[in-house]
């Protein structure tokens, strides 16, 4: 009965790394700008399609393509915040939801018109199929392992940046109290724009790993958003390391659900989230 259970749990944890990667950008925008971006998942999918086009056109590896799009991704985030989100970040939630929801629909349908409804994936060659046998019936794919390690590295880097750099301190300052920042002459605009640029960088990285790991189509965004959202809430709003735990928990829940019956895989993650919410609404690792 427990045949392969350990193996499945390990796969679940590794899958959770990918989810944490989706979620870390959302955690940042929620934590810093209080911006719950409904289009978060759609931006990931947009990134995957962009990488797909670059890889197809230039015949290069998705990882190289990812490096190419990181600077423009930062620029896109910076502009998006400056031109659009800056106008809606504030107390009212309706504009935030409507504007990001509108973006989500625009991206999905734009991709549908440009690429059609068929699923695509990014080709990373032999890396995708390589696996390591750890013994005891546990074998992990090299790529899932790489994804997990990258997610941890990304969170570590962001954490360092936020807590060790001058820009990071400014980001935390406006996140603490944007009114106080304004009173002392600390402009939140550029800081928010920088933070959104970083969010887009995490999205571009997620887009690469997701695209290699799974198929994606123009309608894939919302499910990534929901998973990212669940990881953020379960991990405690605004806590980056909490987000990693949130992602891992969803990965584990899905692995266990899939073991019961494959169609329950996705549902199990959502049910875990609702259960956590009912029992511990502040999340599992709340930011003090």
């Amino acid at each position, binding site marked *: 009965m427990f045949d392969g259970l350990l193996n499945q749990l390990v796969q679940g944890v590794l899958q959770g790394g990918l989810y944490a990667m989706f979620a870390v950008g959302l955690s940042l925008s929620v934590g810093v700008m209080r911006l719950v971006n409904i289009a978060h998942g759609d931006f990931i999918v947009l990134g995957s399609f962009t990488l797909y086009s670059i890889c197809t056109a230039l015949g290069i590896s998705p990882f190289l393509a990812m490096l190419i799009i990181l600077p423009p991704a930062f620029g896109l985030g910076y502009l998006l915040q400056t031109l659009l989100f800056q106008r809606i970040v504030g107390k009212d939630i309706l504009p935030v939801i409507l504007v990001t929801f509108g973006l989500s629909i625009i991206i999905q349908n734009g991709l549908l018109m440009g690429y059609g409804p068929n699923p695509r994936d990014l080709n990373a060659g032999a890396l995708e199929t390589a696996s390591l046998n750890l013994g005891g019936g546990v074998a992990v794919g090299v790529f899932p392992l790489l994804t997990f390690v990258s997610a941890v590295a990304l969170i570590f880097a962001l954490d360092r940046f936020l807590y060790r750099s001058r820009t990071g301190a400014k980001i935390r*300052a406006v996140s*603490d109290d944007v009114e106080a920042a304004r*009173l002392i002459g600390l402009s939140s605009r550029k800081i928010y724009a920088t933070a959104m640029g970083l969010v887009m960088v995490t999205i571009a990285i997620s887009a690469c790993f997701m695209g290699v790991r799974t198929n994606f189509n123009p309608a894939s965004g919302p499910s990534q958003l929901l998973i990212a959202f669940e990881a953020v809430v379960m991990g405690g709003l605004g806590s980056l390391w909490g987000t990693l735990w949130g992602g891992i928990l969803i990965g584990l829940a899905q692995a266990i659900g899939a073991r019961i019956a494959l169609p329950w895989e996705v549902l199990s993650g959502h049910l875990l989230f609702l259960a956590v919410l009912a029992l511990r609404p502040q999340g599992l690792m709340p930011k003090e």
Partner: protein
Amino acid sequence: MTADDALLRIDGLRVFHGKFEALPGVDMQVGAGEVVSIIGANGAGKSSLLKAIVGQVDRIEGEIAFGGSSLAGRATPAIVAGGIALVPEGRRLFPSLSVEENLSMGAEVGRKGEIGLDEVFGMFPILRERRRQRARELSGGQQQMIAVGRALMANPRLLLCDEISLGLAPTIVNDIYRILPQVRDRGIGIVVVEQDIGRSLKVADRFYCMLEGKFSLTGRPEETDRATVMKHYFGL
């Protein structure tokens, strides 16, 4: 002092919050190296005046000139970078940032100058000991020291202090007020807004008494008797 050599010159300033007029019209000057107190009861419009100077009110009429040039239409960051720093009412620190990080935010927004971490730690030695702690873990008085230090880190030519004694024990207030003469001696103009008349007049070179948004009395503390001040404070 004459209007010409004033560091800050305000003429006919009116301040509006939406349709509500918070300040119906004041004139004042502050010189370099001068401590000016503004006293007045709660709701007299003192905070509105300070916020207007740093560009944090809805709308103003009248003229605010700093160092001879008008501040009209300038945003807060530009005003602060130009040399005016505010110690906001209620301190308004960044609670999750360390003491040192809070102070460094002042340097981020201000001018280049001689006041740095060492100078602030020299004025408030306790902050040096606690530099790595988060601001919210410190006592109210220490937090107020951070707020004053943060403003000084901006190397202002004009320092605006809004109710810095509010809710603090007298000995701690002494520790904070003690540094104001040192600051003044660096040639920095200081505006102190207080409800505590005694404290405020003791430190001031000049004072303005505000009643319902207008200055009802102005002068030098040593030349004005207490009864007159009280009369104008309460509008009797």
